[in-house]
Every structure is written in C-alpha cells, then in structure tokens.
C-alpha cells in the first residue's frame, strides 16, 4: 500500500480501530470478571518475569547503598529497637493472657473457635503504574494457590484484595484505591460502616452515625460481612473526624495500618468466599 493510498484509507482504518475499542470497552465495563480478562492475564504473565527480574536487580543495588547509610545510625536504632522489644514483649504477654481467658470463655459458651487461615508470603514488584489506580503486582499467582478476591495483608494490617491473577502474578487493589471498599467497624464501639479509598494514601469510614462517640487513634477492624476479608483484621486508625451537627454521619478519615504506599513484602490469606460463609454460620 503506497503512502497516498494509506493516507486516503486512514479515516476508514481509524473508524474500524475505534469501533473495535468501543466494543472492547463495552464488553469489559460492566462485566464483573473484567479485571480477569484473557488479554490482561496473558500480557502480565508474559511481562512479569522480566519486571520481577529487573526489580530484583534494582532492589539489590538500592539495598547495598541503603545498608551503608543505615549502618551509620545502627547504634541509636539498636537501642530504640531494644526498648521496643521490651514494650512488645510486655504487650504480648498481656495478649496471651487475654487469649487464654477468651479461649476458656469460648469453650464455656460453646462458641466456635476462630478459624486460622493459611497464608503465603509475596514480593511486590510493581506498584501504581498509573496515576488513576492504586494497585500492586505481586510475584504469586494461581500456581501458588492464589485466587481472585483473596485478602492481602502485612503484619501491620490489611493492604487490599486480589482483583486479577495469572499463573505467576496477582494484581492487588489497595484499600486506598478510589474504587475499593470493605466492611469495617470501630474496635471499641463495634459501630459498623464501610471503608472507601480516598486515593491519597488515606481511607474514609462511612455510615457511622454522629450519635456514636469516635476518638482519634481508635482502631478500625474488618467486619467479615463483605465476604472478602475475615473478621477482626486491622484496617487502620482514626486520623481525623469531621462532625457536622446537621449531617447524620461522621466523616472519619483513616490512616491505614499497613504502609500501603511503600509496602515491599506482603502475605496473601488463602481464604475463599465459601470459607467465610462457613465462618458466619459457625459450621
């Protein structure tokens, strides 16, 4: 095809290409499985080993430099960490004591015990590729038993849920993403609401009545009612409360407990919706 012929046909080619994109958009926009499309799984599966390899090289170089600078402050940090160990040991002992009491009470009241879920560790090798979505890509996939909608967390608290998974990767929607949501409650008052992402590394806890007494620093945990996150996982702490006397709801801003904007290692809770359904019924 000569240059002139190609140029003459260009509007027609444009129309065909745009129409194909419109069809692609329409089929994907409303489809609940759209994040799991064949094209996405195929492409990210192919790209993942390369990105993961490059990430490992960059991380090791960066770690070499940062370990040198970190050594300079090792003495002060060591003293701080020893203090923290003492404090955490005391807290752990208290928690163990409470756990023992709780186990006795659960047995006396014939309540079912809390289920323990299997978890696998994963490395984050890609994060927030574009401005619009808060997403992580981790190096575990279906070959490791990861499935869609499985929760992802750190020792500090929850990070998000798996929205797309291939053999060697899983894409995680972080709780601060504008389109993310989960059932959560205030740990003290047990008032239930919904947590939504605010895109600025913060979340908002919605639907908490202004009649509820909410304190800054109070912990927010999952309710387990969204059938994705098991009950009692730490979401974050209340950072600020905007109480409008005329509004029926508080505006509560939450700081996520997990460092979602810089997390490097996470673990995936191998829990499925059917397991959570069984937990609810207590079977």
């Amino acid at each position, binding site marked *: 095809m000569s240059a002139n012929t*190609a140029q003459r046909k260009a509007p027609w080619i444009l129309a065909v*290409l745009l129409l194909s994109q419109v*069809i692609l*958009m329409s089929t994907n*926009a409303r489809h609940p499985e759209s994040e799991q499309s064949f094209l996405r799984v195929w*492409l990210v599966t192919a*790209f993942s080993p390369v990105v993961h390899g490059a990430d490992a090289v960059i991380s090791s170089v960066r770690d070499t430099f940062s370990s040198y600078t970190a050594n300079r402050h090792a003495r002060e940090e060591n003293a701080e960490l020893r203090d923290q160990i003492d404090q955490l040991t005391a807290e752990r002992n208290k928690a163990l004591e409470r756990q023992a009491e709780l186990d006795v009470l659960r047995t006396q009241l014939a309540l079912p015990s809390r289920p323990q879920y299997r978890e696998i560790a994963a490395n984050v090798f*890609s994060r927030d*590729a*574009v401005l619009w979505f808060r997403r992580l890509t981790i190096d575990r996939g279906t070959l490791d038993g990861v499935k869609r909608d499985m929760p992802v967390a750190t020792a500090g608290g929850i990070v998000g849920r798996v929205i797309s998974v291939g053999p060697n990767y899983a894409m995680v929607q972080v709780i601060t993403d504008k389109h993310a949501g989960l059932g959560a409650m205030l740990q003290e008052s047990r008032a239930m609401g919904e947590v939504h992402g605010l895109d600025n590394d913060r979340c908002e806890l919605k639907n908490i009545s202004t009649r509820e007494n909410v304190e800054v620093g109070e912990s927010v945990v999952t309710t387990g009612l969204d059938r994705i996150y098991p009950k009692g996982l730490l979401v974050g702490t209340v950072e600020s409360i905007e109480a409008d006397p005329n509004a029926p709801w508080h505006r509560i801003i939450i700081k996520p407990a997990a460092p979602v904007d810089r997390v490097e290692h996470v673990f995936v809770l191998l829990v499925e919706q059917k397991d959570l359904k069984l937990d609810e019924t207590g079977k």
Partner: protein
Amino acid sequence: MQTFKIALTIIVALLLQMLLPKYLNFFSYIDLPLLVTVYFGLQREPVLGMVTGMIAGVGGDAVEGGILGVGGFSKTLIGYVVGMASVKLSLENPLARLSVVAVASAANTALFVGLHQMLEQPLVSTWSEFGATIGWKALGDSVTSLVMFVALDRFFSEQAAARRMAIKKRFYE
C-alpha cells in the same frame, strides 16, 4: 526489521511503565505508551500512528489496570490526529514536538477521564483536581519526551534522517 523495532519499543515502554513508578513516585504522572504513540504519529504516517496508539493503549490498559479499551480508544485517536497534523503542518522541530506532546497529553487525560466517567467509573471528584492532573501530566510527559524522543531518534535513525530532510525541504521551499 522496522516492525520488530516498533514492537520492541512498545514492549519496553510497557515494561518501564510497570517497573519505574515503584521507585520514582512521580512516574505515575508519565505515560510512556502515549509518548511512543506521539513519536510514531509524528513520522507523517497517520496509519502507523493510530495502529501504534491502539497497540500501546490496549497494552497499557492491560498492564496498568482499568477498563480495557479506554486507553486504546484515546491513543488510537491521538495517533491519528498527530499523524494527520504532522502531514499538514511542520512539526519536525523540537519545540513543535514538545507542544504536540503537551496537547496530546492533555487530550489523552481528558479522553481517559471522560470515558471512565461515561462508563460510570469516575476517576476524579472535582474540576480543580481534574485541571491540576491535566497540568501535571502534560508537564511530566513533555519533560520526559525531551529525553525519550532523542533516544528513539537514535534507535530509529532512518526516520530521524527523513525528519531532518523534511525540515530542510520545507525550509528551502
């Protein structure tokens, strides 16, 4: 060979888009598949511009997340418009290329946000946020294009030579 080099450029752009924002936060404001689209659009071949735009756009949608086809639609259109503009106007000099990138970036952001809004998945809440995002993205894309286009000119030296010839031809005519 040329097709292979173009495919390789798109793949490298997508890989870097996946990798770099983890280390450089500001990289989220930069759209490498868009810059590749604009570069090939500026080669005075609208068909090449739009086909590159479609492949880079759909690939971007796949690796970055979001609704498949939205990025493909906006970049196909931008590839075509830039290709047609480069045929009719003199866009070979670096300053003109910089302006084209800035306008293409703003158009791409507006189309991307608008299409998501139409598909009931809003990405921005206020007009001021929308305006600020367009501005920052246009700045990020323009600055990155200064480096990226030089690298691509070296990689596609024949196209760069043809571009220089076109500048001379227009100048002497």
